[in-house]
């Protein structure tokens, strides 16, 4: 019906003196031409948009590749390499006590003999340590432990920080004031000193044994987690509270409320999606800092329980013969640097991609 009104042929004849445009001189646009005029790009979701920007960041993509390779290695290697992290190398069922401090890709006398006899010996890709344990497996296990510690610690921080921060942010007023004063005090405690202190004390007070992962990691790691749970969450709590306070005041939250949305829907649809990226990014950046702390503690002999290796304790053990066996320091050190560098670069990349407001 509406189209008929504009049909050129049905229009009344144009008065020759009229200044109106003569519609007969115009042609109707075809469907193809209409499409060409449509310059709107396809609508993208927030996530897809961020991923697109992330993919254009070569450093972040490289970090993802490096991390995937490292994670694949710590999963695959222990089942491929026939050595264990805690046992001295055995050749043909016999303990090989001569296989200490070998450089990468060399064989001990016993192993050489065995190879000459036609046996197969898996090469020591990174040599062996001072007790004759395969160093490659130890470095891989150390990476595994350091990563587990890092991820677990940042999960603790994430959960406590988000809960505490959002409660303070939502309720506001007196509750917020008191909760934030507590945060202020905890924030100004010197964290590393507190970790050292708790490690020293917990070593004497609690005794975890058994074959569970925590038992093998030792009390020092429990105190590390404990301190992360007690102290490190405050940064996250501050961040979350600040985010929620600013988002709460946005017009779209008001608009949602006016149009009758309940608190649950506002939180789910409007507040969370707007701060989730910031939270995830700072959790990702927490991982390298936890790995740093762990290696620092291992270095001052407050780290994981022997014979369990961590990257920090490996680097610490390697110091005694560093002039002769430099490779023993280089491997764990490069691993620490690679992991922290990859997480830092990835975190920066994520921030740039998903949170343009924070871009620096």
């Amino acid at each position, binding site marked *: 019906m509406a189209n008929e009104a504009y049909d050129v042929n049905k229009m009344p004849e144009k008065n020759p003196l009229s200044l109106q445009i003569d519609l007969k001189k115009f042609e109707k646009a075809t469907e193809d031409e209409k499409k060409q005029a449509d310059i709107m790009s396809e609508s993208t979701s927030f996530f897809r948009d961020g991923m697109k920007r992330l993919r254009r960041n070569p450093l972040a993509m490289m970090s993802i590749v490096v991390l995937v390779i490292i994670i694949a290695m710590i999963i695959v290697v222990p089942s491929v390499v026939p050595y264990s992290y805690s046992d001295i190398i055995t050749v043909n069922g016999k303990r090989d006590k001569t296989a200490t401090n070998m450089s990468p890709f060399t064989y001990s006398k016993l192993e050489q003999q065995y190879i000459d006899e036609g046996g197969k010996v898996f090469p020591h890709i990174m040599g062996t340590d001072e007790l004759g344990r395969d160093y490659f497996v130890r470095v891989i296990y150390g990476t595994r432990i350091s990563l587990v510690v890092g991820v677990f610690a940042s999960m603790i921080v994430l959960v406590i920080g988000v809960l505490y921060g959002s409660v303070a942010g939502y309720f506001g007023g007196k509750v917020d004031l008191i909760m934030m004063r507590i945060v*202020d*005090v905890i924030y*100004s*405690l*010197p964290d*590393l*000193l*507190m970790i*050292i*202190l*708790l490690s*020293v*004390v917990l070593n*004497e*007070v609690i005794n975890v044994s058994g074959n569970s992962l925590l038992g093998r990691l030792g009390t020092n790691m429990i105190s590390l987690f404990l301190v992360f749970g007690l102290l490190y969450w405050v940064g996250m709590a501050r961040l979350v509270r600040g985010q929620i306070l600013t988002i709460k005041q946005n017009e779209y939250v008001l608009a949602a409320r006016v149009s009758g949305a309940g608190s649950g829907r506002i939180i789910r649809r409007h507040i969370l999606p707007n701060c989730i990226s910031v939270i995830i990014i700072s959790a990702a950046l927490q991982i*390298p800092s936890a790995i*740093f702390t762990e*290696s*620092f503690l291992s*270095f*001052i*002999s*407050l780290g994981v329980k022997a014979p369990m290796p961590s990257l*920090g304790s490996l*680097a*610490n053990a390697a*110091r005694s013969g*560093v*002039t002769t066996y*430099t490779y023993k*320091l280089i491997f764990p*050190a490069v691993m*620490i*640097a690679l992991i*922290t*560098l990859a997480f*830092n*670069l990835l975190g*920066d990349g994520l921030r740039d991609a998903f949170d343009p407001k924070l871009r*620096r």
Partner: protein
Amino acid sequence: MAKYVFKRVILAIVTIFIVCAITFFTMNAIPGGPFNGEKATSPQVRETLEKRFNLDKPVGEQFVIYMKNLLHGDFGISAKTGRDIGVTISSKFAVSAKLGIFAVIVALILGVFFGSIAALMRNRWPDRLIIFMSTLFTSLPSFVLATFLLVVFSVRLGWVKAWSPTHQSLVLPVLSLAAYPAAYITRLTKTSMLDVLGQDYVRTARAKGVAQVKVLFVHTLRNSLIPVVTYVGPMIASVLTGSLVVENIFTIGGLGAEFVTSITNRDYPMIMGVTIFLAVFMVTMNLITDIVYKLIDPRINLD
């Protein structure tokens, strides 16, 4: 302003008190006392000793006594050496402080210099190189860097003598301590300088024909250093904790090395004393940083 300073001082005092309490009570939670060691002492001797060190009193009262002694600068005596902890701390801290001050100065100079270059050459190769290097250095634990510096420059190349009985070179320890804060300051300076360069007053200064050098140093650099000031407190904390390992690696007899030794020796009074001392130092430094920050930039909202 006065209200703000008052609030911060109160917060600092509360923090220090909490640190002292945590330290004291956790240390007291360790089972066993100092006198049930290897040698069996007669009950009488033990009773006298416990009375001498107030160990017969309840823990709460012991804490009050300890705090009172602390206020007089009395940290007690070391369980291993029997020497006065306060004296040990003050003599060892002199060494650490020298190292730390050098590290802070080097970090500030390097960080501000490279940060400014990165900002002025934004998105060109010097900027990219500097930012990549600073990310790299923030990813290297100080003990790894320190060991590498030691191996490369003093063992392999022999440029710097690491150990000598008469004169100890501080170049390598200072560099390994300064690397992390320098890298951090670089990024901080770059960010804030880019921010300042986009400000109207910089454009105005340029437009009215102020010399390029003057715009750079007076209008830009001075204002972009304000965020760097906030980092001074955390930097001192990081240098202090870094010195725990760096002093050990370079065998410098400072407070950091002393602290690590006391941890390995399980010398509890010493650990307690050094923890409290370092904590008070850090909290005070943070307090001063915060107040100075508000003083130099009147634009900052005091709440």
